[in-house]
């Protein structure tokens, strides 16, 4: 799931750590950080398209749906809009 980190956190003064799972694997996030941010900071993969090619967030403002995943069972959730919360479960095969 992870690759070399492509994003890094720039400040340490964040909130309490929370653990979410992405496709079953634990991932450390900070409360208030969006799920998309936590995933980017860990180099976690978002969905793949029909051809198997990787996709990743494009807009970070809720319009492109490239960050969408199934979050706590709800498909089509835009992870760039949702703050990470303890025990949140993200499944990336949930764009459609």
């Amino acid at each position, binding site marked *: 799931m992870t*690759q070399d*980190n*492509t*994003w*890094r*956190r*720039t*400040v340490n*003064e*964040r*909130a*309490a750590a929370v653990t979410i799972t992405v496709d079953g694997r634990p991932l450390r996030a*900070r*409360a*208030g*950080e*969006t799920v998309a*941010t936590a995933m*980017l*900071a860990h180099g976690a993969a*978002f969905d793949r*398209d*029909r*051809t198997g*090619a*990787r*996709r*990743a*967030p*494009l*807009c*970070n*403002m*809720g*319009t*492109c*749906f*490239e960050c*969408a995943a199934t*979050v*706590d069972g*709800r*498909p*089509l*959730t*835009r992870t760039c*809009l*949702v*703050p990470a919360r303890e025990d949140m479960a993200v499944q990336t095969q949930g*764009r*459609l």
Partner: protein
Amino acid sequence: MFDLAIIGAGPAGMAAALTAADHGLRVVVIDEQGRAGGQIFRRPPETFTGSEFRPTAGYEWATALIRRFEADTRVVGRFGWSAIGILHEDAEPDTLCVAVNHPTRGTGMITARRLLIATGAYDLPVAFPGWTLPGVMAAGGVQTLVKAQKVAPAGEVVLAGAHPLLLLVADLLVGNGVPVREVAFAQSIPAPAEMLRALNAVPGHLRMLAETGTVLTRLLRRGVRVSPRTVVTAAHGTEHVSRVTLTRVDRRWQAKGAPRDVAASHLVVGYGFVASTELARQAGCELTFDSPRGGWVVAHDERLRTSVPGVSVAGEPAGVAGADASRAEGALAALALAADLGRPVPAAAFTEAERAVARAARFSTVVQRVFEPDREALGRLATQETTICRCEMVSRGNVDDFLASAPFVTDVNAVKLSCRTGMGPCQGRYCENTVAGVLAAARDQPIGLGGRFSAHLPVKPVPVGDLGALDTPLPEPGATPRDIN
């Protein structure tokens, strides 16, 4: 029932809400972001410590506006809720229903007598080979990640575009220690400089552009390569961007000279903005095509009323013109709505609000003229293999083949129905402009003539199960009106 429902808590929505409340209206503001401010004033989450809000240079009024808005207990806030559609209540002609959806709470309905659409804008999507690769991101997307989420790209970054926002983002990246390899600007660089001279004629409105001049100098001093008359023609990589191709262009953004490759792990694209009009489309508002003002924009009268009774518009969906204009339009729209609902509004208040709108427009017209994206040229960047509809995986070749087989088709909606472009989750936001460009080129007609995609409820897709609850009214808050998601 509310007197006024406002969708969007950017400068337009916040100004409108406060003005409307001042005139005695019961107001609800719906925004899918977690906090007020809109795209330009996106702030770090409340839970982050040590990262307080600093308003964008030139917008000193922002802090006060946001504070006043957040402290105002007369205004009900629905943050974290997306407006997904607007329904008319046939039985009650003076009632509009806004369908809203929340990522954990599902769907509900908010009713109001009037509606203000203040949904802002988003980065203009441009399809070129490789634009779907991870590592390619919109300028506003990168800006909000760095500014409000406090993360930055690791590795070397190339920026390409034609809008002054691109220079602000480059500066923000450099300031966060990100190695910026190159900024490719489709116009010639004297253009921003000329623009600054023009702006001196408009005192008090230097704002973003004054900032751009300083930023450009700073970038050059720090050794960042800023390339004029250069566009990005491809991004390469297998799982992630590793290299981008930049090509010199002439005045009309036509390639000239050999392309060159630059190693980069991130490509930031910023050619301008598209007015966010899908809710207005779905509500049945008339639109007009105005390329320098963001493409399809919502038609309105001088007091921001749309063609649909009870529905007004303010800010970018009425024409992309910057935060000053958005704020001014929000206030004017709210005055007009208050007057419509029988509240006394002194003529002087209208005069002042109209003046503010006119002042902001003088400035933005200059910006729009200098930085209008060349849509025809951008449309040509997609090759036959390029995916132009990211959601439904439709290539330029698919659309070209269809257009060749159906010579009578001159309308983007016909392309949508046959090729499925615009039928996925983004509902055409990321392919409409490219499809319009491809169609215009094939038929040798101006882009606006091909029309626009229609929009349907839900304008932002939700789990199918949620739609059953569409007619459930959302409980209106009583004692504690603030409802931060």
